[in-house]
């Protein structure tokens, strides 16, 4: 296999895997909060989380890029305090990717939790179990299909990212060049064969992940996931 081709695929799958892992860690407590909190401004938080579903990726990419810029306080602080520059780096596209895929992790988990009867949680409390124990032993095992859906959708969405990564990361081979951008690039250079290879791999990966979700949904039609 062409080393450049392999490298791009490696960056693509590394980005998707890390995005999914980070979102899982953030998503579990966050979706729990969104499912059960009665905080008055919750709809605003929910709207923020869902924005990536409707906003053009270039808008998110633009804001993330602005945030990374040393001309503004966040980027300035990063560069002065930590000596880190996120624009056009792998870490930079990873953070952008986490923001962009947030709703794909949060929404299935939140819907899964909301679909469980309140009495399950309350029964666990009356049996002397803390909120954390109740979450991991009662709630989470009963939304397993939602959890798998969230993981698969986040992963599939991350490997398919184009706009945000292009804005924030550019197209640097081995660092920020992912398969979706490579396709565009190869087509521009009239390398249709390479473009075709990338496209086929993305197509198959996404198809297999979605087929997995639908197979699982068929088995567990009790819990509405999406």
């Amino acid at each position, binding site marked *: 296999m062409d080393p450049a081709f392999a490298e791009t695929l490696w960056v693509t799958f590394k980005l998707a895997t890390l995005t999914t892992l980070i979102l899982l860690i953030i998503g579990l407590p966050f979706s729990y909060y969104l499912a059960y909190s009665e905080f008055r401004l919750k709809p605003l938080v929910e709207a923020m989380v869902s924005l990536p579903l409707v906003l053009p990726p270039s808008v998110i990419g633009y804001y993330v890029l602005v945030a990374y810029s040393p001309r503004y306080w966040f980027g300035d602080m990063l560069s002065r305090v930590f000596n880190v520059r996120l624009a056009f780096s792998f870490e930079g596209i990873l953070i952008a990717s986490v923001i962009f895929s947030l709703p794909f992790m949060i929404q299935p988990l939140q819907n899964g939790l909301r679909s469980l*009867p309140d*009495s*399950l949680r*309350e*029964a*666990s*409390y*009356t*049996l*002397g*179990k*803390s909120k954390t124990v109740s979450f991991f*032993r*009662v709630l989470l*095992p*009963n939304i397993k299909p939602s959890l798998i859906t969230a993981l698969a959708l986040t992963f599939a969405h991350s490997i398919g990212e184009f706009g945000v990564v292009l804005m924030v990361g550019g197209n640097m081979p081995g660092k920020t060049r992912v398969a979706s951008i490579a396709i565009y690039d190869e087509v521009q250079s009239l390398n249709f064969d390479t473009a075709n290879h990338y496209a086929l791999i993305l197509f198959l990966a996404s198809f297999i992940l979605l087929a997995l979700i639908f197979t699982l949904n068929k088995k567990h039609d009790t819990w509405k996931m999406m």
Partner: protein
Amino acid sequence: MENDVIEIDVEKVLISAGGIINMHIKATLGIGELLVIFGNSGAGKTTLLRIISGLTNPDRGYLKVGKSVWLDTGAGINRTPQERNIGFMFQDFALFPNMTVSENIVYAQKEKNIGHVHELIEKFGLSEFAGRRPAKLSGGQKQRVALARALARKPELLLLDEPLSALDLKTRILLQDEIMKAHTFTHATTLLVTHDLTEVFRLAHKVLKIENGQIVALCTPDELFLNNQISGKVQITGNVVKIEKQDTFYLLTVVTGMNQIIKVTAFPNDIENLHEGDPVIVFSKAFNPIIMRL
């Protein structure tokens, strides 16, 4: 003596379909009793049970169980449900779908004690189903698991929220006995919410009747529902399970609280408004019954 009682004094504004209700319940209950909380739906029965369990916060309240204060809004005391030693049985049973029957019971224990799990499983006739998930159980079986699970913590207070409302009449009568058994077996003070008169008669030592968030009576079932004129005579309460028409009269089969089956004759005017499942009192008039040495 004051350590042998449960003192409740709670207030909460309830917004229900019928409008706003100012709930105020103040009562002293005996420890070890089986108290049935009776009233129409929307009267505040379930809210009272939830306040006692700590799942719902009252606007103002005081709750003392034996020596310990569980709730005192004035003093800023409000134990969480985890800190109150209760067993709560939900209307939908709330069995954990990811656990088998025995896992549900083990989960409820403070410290794992397989011996006690087996004892509960046997006591409630669940041995056959111990390895099954709740989805594979009938309504009556689920109710028994929920009851066994609620007892697994050895609670001081057993709170049952309309535990039989989802079941058919026959299963209900059988399971009323299971509740009696649970009560005698644990001696836990039991509070059972119902809007079903049958359960009041078959189960209650005492009835707390609530209307629109206020207590209207706290007494024995007999005192609440029966005509005083017949007191002192032989009287048995039970449920009509069958009404059969004979030539000129009706033959009623009544199952008593002690699970005895009695046949009683009745005239057409006696059975007006009487249906199978209705709670009834069977009593003697004039010179019967006849006594005989055993």
